[in-house]
């Protein structure tokens, strides 16, 4: 089975990279892009039957830094 973990900076945490991307979009004429937040996607190739709780543990222990990041698990 496969799962995808989406890691994003929490709301309220400044995202300087997203802000730089927003600037670049603006300079290309995409003025409608009012805000950009950049995160990362991690794809996991897992043993069949791995529980979502187990993937949650992976996120808590390593994949996300929950001080500044939130995560969302998608089972594929």
């Amino acid at each position, binding site marked *: 089975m496969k799962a995808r973990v989406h890691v994003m900076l929490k709301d309220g*945490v*400044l995202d*300087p*990279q997203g802000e*730089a991307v927003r600037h670049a979009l603006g300079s290309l004429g995409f003025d409608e892009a009012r805000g950009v937040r950049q995160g990362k996607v991690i794809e996991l190739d897992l043993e069949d039957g791995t529980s979502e709780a187990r993937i949650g543990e992976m996120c808590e*222990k*390593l*994949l996300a*830094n929950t*001080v*500044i990041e939130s995560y969302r698990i998608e089972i594929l």
Partner: protein
Amino acid sequence: MKAAVIVFPGSNCDRDLAVALRAAGFDVTMVWHKETGLPGGVDLVGLPGGFSFGDYLRCGAIAARSPIVGAVVDHAKKGGYVLGICNGFQILTESGLLPGALMRNRELKYICRTVPLIVKNADSPFTSGYRDRQAIDIPIAHHDGNYSADADTLARLSGEGRVAFTYAANPNGSRNDIAGILSENGRVLGMMPHPERAADPALGGTDGRALFTSLAQSFAEA
């Protein structure tokens, strides 16, 4: 006085840190990250600067989960001393020994230059050789030194005198100009600037030396 300097794949300030500690009188052992325990009788653990594990995932994230860091956390929980510099500071926040996180610099640029710092707490075992509010010049060299923490944590750090150093002119966007913080018991220090790069006149500065001599003195008194 025994110190252990942990070496990760990608550490590049480990030997500089060992030189600075030895000059202050420490007996230094280098410890590879795959070790599961610290050498017996170690008073101080140094987590050096560099790019452990290529900064993959997040700076310090993988190092913080390496076998030796489990032993470093135990050492700190038993009241042992830990000094984390630059990548070492990132490892300390990733391991939970210090609060907050180090994010990408505000201007998204790697910054490598000597910057003025203010000593905010001259009462800790790491800073007793400085005067309160003393201005010192220490090099920084990082891409991810932008200290971030929630408002409660920031208030607690400043209320409890746990901000050891601030930037006189904030180079990276750090909240409250924070350059280095102490643990609750004052025995764990994490800082982005590199005192070991300013501990010998041949390196162009000696303002970092007092940090190592302060530590040596607090162990001599103990």
